[in-house]
């Protein structure tokens, strides 16, 4: 069975390798500071106790007040997986360091995250939109993309102004 590292375990190991690199700890993940993200992740890859040579997953999450970039680090030899995160507060020009220098597999996932969230990855060799076209207005996976007035949600309800009904329920699926 795969050993799933908790946030505390990963934070303890990361603090031992790169002191002062941990920003916050949650139950499932360890949140690192952006300034030494590359240093700590490459130390976690090369450290024999962690050996996270395989980057399983990389994605972004919009938490309204901040963006999270989530990394699932995996060791095939030792059969273990851990979740690392980095947070960025700036909504106008969000930017985190790229980890392509550590794992080549990150480049396409970072490109996708840039495309859909608008998070810039500093040091990425070829950061451009891959799923949407250049000049596409906005970044669709941000929570404020296509936000409707009056608490309407795109998808389940009609767009504002197209319906004669005054106030359709926001979530009729309850």
């Amino acid at each position, binding site marked *: 069975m795969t050993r799933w590292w908790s946030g505390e375990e990963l934070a303890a190991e990361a603090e031992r390798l790169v002191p002062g690199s941990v920003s916050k700890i949650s139950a499932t993940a360890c949140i690192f500071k952006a300034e030494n993200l590359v240093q700590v992740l490459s130390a976690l890859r090369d450290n024999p106790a962690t050996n996270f040579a395989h980057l399983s997953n990389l994605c972004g999450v919009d938490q309204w007040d901040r963006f999270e970039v989530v990394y699932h680090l995996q060791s095939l030899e030792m059969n273990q997986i851990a979740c690392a995160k980095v947070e960025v507060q700036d909504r106008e020009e969000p930017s985190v360091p790229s980890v392509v220098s550590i*794992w080549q*597999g990150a480049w396409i996932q970072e490109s996708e995250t840039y495309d859909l969230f608008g998070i810039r990855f500093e040091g990425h060799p070829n950061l451009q939109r891959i799923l949407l076209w250049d000049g596409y207005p906005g970044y669709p996976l941000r929570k404020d*993309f296509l936000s409707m007035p009056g608490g309407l949600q795109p998808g389940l309800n009609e767009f504002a102004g197209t319906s004669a009904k005054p106030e359709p329920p926001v979530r009729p*699926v309850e």
Partner: protein
Amino acid sequence: MSEIVQSEPFVMNIGPQHPSTHGVFRVKATVDGEQVVDAEMVIGYLHRSMEKLAEERTYTQNIPFTDRTDYLSSMSNNLGYCLAVEKLAGIDVPPRGQAIRVIMAELQRLASHCMGAGAFANDTGAWQTPIMWFMREREKILDIFELTSGARLTCNYMRIGGVAFEIPEDFEEQVRALIGPMRETIADGEGLLSGNEIFLVRARNVAVIPPELAINASLSGPMLRGSGIAWDIRKADPYCGYEQYDFEIPIGYQGDAYDRFIVRLEEMRQSLRIIEQALDGLPGGPHSTEVPLSLRPPAGEAYARIESPRGELGYYLVSDEGPSPYRFHIRPPSLINLSVLKEMTVGGSIADAIVALGSIDIVVGEIDR
């Protein structure tokens, strides 16, 4: 003719509408004569923004979306998503539901590898005969899916907490009836191709991926195992009771297109073994647990992954206690396996680039989502 013919690089588009790209996908290849000097992939033609759509729908309403990502293995995609929701909400699946899920996932792997191996044979120039043999067997599996779920490709059969319906009465008989012919077809396909001189010239030492690159580039599935790394999530992190079944992980040893093809064929044999064992020990009892219609998992996050026919298929879900996921992310194995296309094709000829692309076994619906 003593004069040397001068050539200069030029850009050639392979696709987006081309049989060898297996979907709406374009390779911007820079070629110098017959040699590929650069290859850039252009994706996004099939982008439907499923991750955004899923944030507005309930957990159960999202299951049909997962059918439409990797449309050649909808059962596996249903399973990966349902496992992620179950992990998030702490739901257990009864043993019968788990066994049915395993049978369906392995049938789906057979169907998908039939398509993958057959299409790869087509790409190498074994025109139509192997793919027709494999398609004939795949058809029987799709008939069983239709019998069980009502649909052939977009099955929408798994549910959170189990499966949608009980299996029909003649299900077991029909599944057992296809195992023998499927074994014969795999042997026929292997006999026709694996020792064939033309096939060996086309596939051996083409698109070689060294094991270090395979790990560093996050590859998974037959792409990783073809390079000699015995990594299978069914063994490493068993889900749905895979630890009860006896099967092996086939690996290649050169990391070329040929090894990936052989790994797929051998995986089909192992899938048949798993199906036989699961049918023999199919437990009784309910096929799923009761789950509230508007499921509201506790706030948190969950990452669940399965071994889909194409590799590590992961679903990352974030819940804010609402009826729909706050964040719904798919880790698409096809997209990440495709990211080494440049390393696989540069230096080879254009014809080898087609073989390299075929050996990845991409599904564009999953790449673009």
